[in-house]
């Protein structure tokens, strides 16, 4: 039930276009909403949005009563992109896990902060900034959280050499 309404709401951001699955297409997928097989993937909805659509997508989830699970990044060095992944889930028995992802160029990794919507995103964004160097525009306190205060390296980047 909530799955369909959320899917429709997110779909509205893309004017109804459905992207191809990258595993089948063999190329990076385009922006859009995909439904995933829960049994193999462990989540239901997978939406890739543009960085400037992010706040709209997260607001949909906030209004839908989702809670934030985590935020993380992936370094796609071959495509010269950084991906930010937002996980959302629900407290009720209408199990629906939603993954929001957005890709930004590696040399200019800036996405808007969602800590204005979800206060709990604060630390997750700081952690992602620590590990990937992704800047969250508008974040109130973007200083290293898990790494030392003077850390100027980003260990989870694929070209990081210790």
């Amino acid at each position: 039930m909530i799955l369909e309404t959320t899917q429709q709401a997110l779909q509205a951001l893309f004017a109804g276009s459905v992207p191809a699955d990258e595993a089948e297409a063999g190329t990076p997928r385009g922006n859009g909403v995909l439904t995933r097989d829960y049994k193999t993937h462990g989540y239901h909805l997978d939406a890739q949005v543009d960085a400037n659509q992010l706040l709209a997508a997260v607001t949909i989830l906030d209004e839908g009563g989702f809670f934030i699970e985590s935020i993380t990044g992936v370094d796609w060095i071959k495509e010269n992109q950084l991906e930010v992944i937002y996980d959302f889930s629900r407290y009720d028995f209408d199990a629906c896990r939603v993954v929001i992802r957005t890709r930004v160029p590696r040399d200019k990794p800036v996405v808007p902060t969602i800590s204005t919507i979800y206060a709990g995103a604060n630390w997750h964004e700081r952690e992602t900034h620590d590990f990937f160097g992704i800047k969250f525009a508008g974040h109130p306190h973007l200083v290293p959280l898990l790494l030392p205060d003077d850390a100027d390296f980003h260990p989870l980047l694929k070209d990081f050499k210790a």
Partner: protein
Amino acid sequence: MSAPIQLRPDETFLLNVGPQHPATHGVLRVKMQMDGEYIVKAETVLGYVHRMHEKMGENRTYAQYLPNLSRLDYLGALGYTHGHVLAVERAAGIEVPERAEYIRAITVELNRVASHLFWFGAFVMDLGGFSPLMYAIQDREHILDMLEAVTGARLTYCYYRFGGLYNDVDDDFIEAAKRFIPRMRKSLKKYDALVSGNVIFRNRLEGIAPVSAEMCRKYGATGPVARGSGINFDVRKNEPYSVYPEFEFDVPVYHECDSLARYKVRMDEMEQSLRIIEQGLEKLPDGPIMAEKKPKTIKLPVGDYYQAVETARGSFGIRIVSDGDKNAYRLKLRSPTYSNMHLFDEACEGMLIMDALAFMGSLDLVIPEIDR
């Protein structure tokens, strides 16, 4: 690192709780701006035991990563390894024999009871009562002995394997577990009389540190913290995995939102875990403990996979992004206490320091698990 102490015109002062402080149970630091005994503002400083487990996940094969998981949370390690093996099995499509899943569920629940017992003792010790810790450790010792006889380790277990288990349980374990359940129930009654009913204890917790359900949602709090705020959320029920649908158990939920509610949730959870263990021992089927069809080296198909499990501290999630290699391309660990601890900064504003530290105890923090 921190700014030099400057007495502001409004005469607040900065109090450094941690990294070495008896109440933080590990190397956690909270910078508190205090007005007398009242907290004006708190800022948590993390990372003192950060070990970059996620990078290790990229450099090790899936099997080699198994011991890392139990180093996250040394009190309830089995829950975390369970998450990892389930995630890999889900992605690789490995069918796990029923017996293995039952044994996993039994051992995870035993570990959950052990973890809650230790939390119980440590929490009461935070409040100044020392003896309950010793009683809790005695009961926990029985669990550790049982788990040691099966897994070979007392805390940092590496027992589950992809497709099954390292080795089967023997009759001694089943006997010991059956003996343990009534003894533990008796102990729970004792704890109830000694601690839960105690007027000093109740006065310290009742109505202290309210965390609303909305706040839990915004911060992503899970586990007993969410359930103490009236949220009926338990991954074992909401997204059933393993053999949990076969068990009959309740999810304790309290609507008071205070520290006492979080305490009660955990105390009730121990009873529910005992119920699961009881049923598990009864239903334990015969059969193999290792999947027959299992590749020698595990390579996951391209894609990303998520698995959530309910550990003693809340919903632990593991995300594996695979590029088809034998190592993960990216491995993210979503630790429950990370989100639960995040609440603290906002919730403790305006609280007395002794209430705040009791609140911190009621969050059940394990620092290595926050810092990863």
